[in-house]
């Protein structure tokens, strides 16, 4: 907008308005830069400090007080994330289906929806304490299963929300058409609605999976951590986030372990960012 474009504008007021607008635009651009710069700074730091420690041994050896690798932690994280994803996805898709197909706008459905949305933003540390109280304490020991269940509860509301949203996008006409052909409700939902909503639900699950694979707080009270190789979900289980946490805090006087934490952080962040990007491609 130049001054020629608005010949009627009064000089003083017009200049003040333009000035206010420039300040505002400048502030918006500044805010955007402020918001974006952190990702670059963090990724830069992870690469600079993480890459030097990256070698094959990181994947093939277990964590030791003298350094070692992250093999056991990676295996443990994969197992617990897989358990959490499977469990959370099954329950989440079922609950989301009920909300979209049966509950609809009923009072009960609205309550479930509301509570699911609350759980979506509930602190993950609380979920950890909850699983500690209902699983770890009665069983008497920390376990990989407890970690998996805690992660499942964090994933659950994500899947519920996306399932419901995606089923809501399936046109009502398709359901009616299938119904007119004599299909039963369960057949309509599983064959017609799910196939229309599949891409969206997969995206939601991938995003949720990315989120739980980086969760640390709930694992403190459930899976704990260990230095050993284990694939037994019934005992204390090594995992990447807790290993990073312990190496950066109680073991931070050992330079090799701090190096390992940076390398682990790089691997974890790279995995999560790649999952996020894949999820976006699936959605498209």
């Amino acid at each position, binding site marked *: 907008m130049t001054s020629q474009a608005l010949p009627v504008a009064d000089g003083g007021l017009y200049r003040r308005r333009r000035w206010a607008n420039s300040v505002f635009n400048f502030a918006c651009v500044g805010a955007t830069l402020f918001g974006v710069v952190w990702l670059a700074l963090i990724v830069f730091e992870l690469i600079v400090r993480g890459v030097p420690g990256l070698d094959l041994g990181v994947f093939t050896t277990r964590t030791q007080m003298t350094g070692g690798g992250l093999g056991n932690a990676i295996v443990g994280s994969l197992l617990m994330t897989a358990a959490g994803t499977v469990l959370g996805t099954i329950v989440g898709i079922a609950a989301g289906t009920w909300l979209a197909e049966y509950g609809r706008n009923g009072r009960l459905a609205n309550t479930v929806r509301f509570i699911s949305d609350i759980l979506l933003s509930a602190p993950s540390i609380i979920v950890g304490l909850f699983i500690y109280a209902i699983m770890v304490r009665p069983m008497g020991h920390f376990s990989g299963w407890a970690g998996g269940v805690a992660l499942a509860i964090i994933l659950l509301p994500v899947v519920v929300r996306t399932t419901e949203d995606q089923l809501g996008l399936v046109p009502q006409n398709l359901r009616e058409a299938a119904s007119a052909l004599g299909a039963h409700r369960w057949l309509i939902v599983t064959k017609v609605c799910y196939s229309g909503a599949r891409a969206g639900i997969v995206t939601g699950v991938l995003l949720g999976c990315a989120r739980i694979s980086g969760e640390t707080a709930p694992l403190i009270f459930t899976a704990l951590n260990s230095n050993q190789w284990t694939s037994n979900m019934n005992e204390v289980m090594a995992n990447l986030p807790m290993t990073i946490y312990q190496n950066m805090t109680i073991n931070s006087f050992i330079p090799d372990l701090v190096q390992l934490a940076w390398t682990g952080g790089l691997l974890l962040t790279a995995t999560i*960012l790649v999952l996020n990007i894949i999820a976006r491609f699936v959605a498209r």
Partner: protein
Amino acid sequence: MSSNQTQLDMPLGADAHRMRALSRNHRLDQVFKGTTFVFAMLVLATLFAILASLAVAGYSTFATFGLDFFTLNRWAANQDVYGALPAIYGTLVSSAIAIVIAAPVSIGIAVFLTEKCPARLRQPLATTVELLAGVPSIIYGMWGVMVLAPFLQTWFPTILPAGTGLFTAGLILAIMIIPFITSVTRDVLMTVPRETRESAYGVGCTTWEVTRYILLPSVKGGVVGAIILGLGRALGETMAVTFVIGNNLFFAPTLFGQGTSISALIANQFPEADGAQRSALLALGLVLFIITLLVLTAARLMLRQMDRKHD
């Protein structure tokens, strides 16, 4: 249904085989509906189970300390004195600092993305901001303590002599919640009809005037809801805060000094705690959960009101 009834209901031309298929499908329908219903109720039950289990696990602390739990100014496990005041103060103050920084920045980003951004940059910028939300909180924590805290210590030695503290925690929290507030604010800004903003621009309004007098007033509830949602996130954030808040277990009314937060205290002490201390930490968890529940409920109600207005 008696067999006689079935005979009467039998559609024309249906044989026994088809009838069996029909009733099997009918059963499957009910099983399907029942199963999904049970899982939906499981979601509902989770929330109440969390509240109940934490209340039971922390009961002995509430019974011992009563209201003193909230007013004692220190958390000293060695003396069996458990006062939640330093932790509650730290949680509220660090989150407030985060909101003060994150709210204007997020609104700025959202306005830039919806109003000013060149179309080609819009998607990459939005994706970058969203990826920021994907970075795990432990990474923010280690980055905060190894990079940000030393940086602040070097450049502001008078205000932040240690580099860590409530302000540093607030800054890290702000970085973490910017993506959430931005994405919700962006969604609510996009609900403003195109005609509304076009007509405002049409009568000669500047971007600032459109934002200030048209966009923000028409989505006020949504933006406030987005900010409160961010607050809910900040209150419960654990790992990032644990690293940078300083872990001072004595109450000090400070903005820049070291302190602790509910989540940081739990994460720090839980592994080595037992007995009364563990119960006290679980009680503290219940306090945190109730605070976040209230905040998140307020946020959802405001966002829901927005939705209703637009339907």
